[in-house]
């Protein structure tokens, strides 16, 4: 298991290299962490603990999937006034399974937290995908929200691109890139992932 700790008052941005399949992350008081996690054909388990007041995490998970895989992530708001925002996007290319299980956990007596999650899977073929967006909130005075979408890229969007002469293949690549890549400024960090998108057919 790979462990990441962000110490008090620090602010960090990390790119996970996907060598490990399990990550344990701790964010301490007044610390913030932004995670970019790009994956291809692999399953992961991630556990995050927001351990000090005003700790925050933003987690961007993007996966290209061609086999049966899952992504399980749990965020524990261990103390009050902590914030989490999970953005989990997957593109399921073939007829395989891609499952997301996403837990936001706020225990009793913990208040003033923001716990958000946005989960989307695009099935390009007949793949069977599932999303379990769980908000396990045991206390009042918190803000929690989630969204989950499984489908394909919208036909209207594809029509618009094609009406400008862009082929179905190129349009799908463009939409996949826009859907999965949140930070093109750091192209070097994700060049392998970009290569996989470019090879989509």
């Amino acid at each position, binding site marked *: 298991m790979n462990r990441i700790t962000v110490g008090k008052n620090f602010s960090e941005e990390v790119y996970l290299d996907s060598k490990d399949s399990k990550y344990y992350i701790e964010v301490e008081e007044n610390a913030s962490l932004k995670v970019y996690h790009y994956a291809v054909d692999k399953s992961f388990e991630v556990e995050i603990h927001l351990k000090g007041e005003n700790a925050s995490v933003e987690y961007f998970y993007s996966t290209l999937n061609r086999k049966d895989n899952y992504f399980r992530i749990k965020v524990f708001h261990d103390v009050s006034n902590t914030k989490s925002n999970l953005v989990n996007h997957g593109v399921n290319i073939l007829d395989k399974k891609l499952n997301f299980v996403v837990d936001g956990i706020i225990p009793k007596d913990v208040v003033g937290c923001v716990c958000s999650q946005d989960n989307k899977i695009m099935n390009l073929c007949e793949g069977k995908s599932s999303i379990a967006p769980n908000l396990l909130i045991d206390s009042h005075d918190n803000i929690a929200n989630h969204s989950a979408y499984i489908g394909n890229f919208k*036909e*209207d*969007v594809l*029509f*618009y*691109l*094609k*009406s*400008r*002469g*862009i*082929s*179905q293949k*190129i*349009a799908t690549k*463009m*939409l996949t*890139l*826009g*859907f999965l*890549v949140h930070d093109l400024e750091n192209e070097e960090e994700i060049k392998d992932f970009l290569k996989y998108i470019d090879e989509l057919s």
Partner: protein
Amino acid sequence: MLVIKDLKVKVSDTDKVILDNFNLSINEGEVHVIMGPNGTGKSTLAKTILGHYKFEVECGDIEFYGKKLNSLSTDERAKLGIFLAMQDPTEIEGVSNSEFLRTALGEVSGSKVNLYEFITAIEKAYDDVSLNKDMLHRFVNKGFSGGEKKKNEVLQLKMLKPKLIILDELDSGLDVDSLKIVCKNINDYLKENKKASVLIITHYPRILDYLKPDYVHIMKNGNIKQTGDLSLASFVEKNGYDGINAVEERDLNE
């Protein structure tokens, strides 16, 4: 250039017929306008010419420079030089205007786009349609006002240089000043590209103050009921589409 013969179009997977026995012929350099009340099939016609997924051609043909479009995909039709400026342009999250236009230009021209030439041309186009150049780096139509979306459509046609321009309700959502700007750009385009033709789809004759048509067609119940010149549009403005009904009935009685 464009010939539509005996076209019958229904909504895909239903029996609902929208266009029936529709005929239209547009030659190079002509400006045609189709007017008609709501729900008569004007936008369906525009989308069908581009092969929209929601509509199915039951019978009849659409030909462009002698090539039958019926079995071609939407992108293949666009590559032939047909451009549809949409009534409500789609917002595309995650795809920037610049990436979108550069890709489209490469696909339509079939060659790699020179970055310097692209930037020079697009900056000029942004100035021409009075759009902020920063919009080039924003997602396609995302957060654009109605007027900005329409200007963005005209900007795209200036870049892609089509042979046939279809304007679907271009005037909706545009204030008078913006309407003048987009129409000026279309008129300039037509001056530079003498063979290019335009098919305007509209409810109101207002746009015809700025884009002068050679032919005005009145469409009702899925086909063209009457064809004339600009005076027909003036007649509609004065008498409404019910006035066309009265003329039709009078003709039948005679």
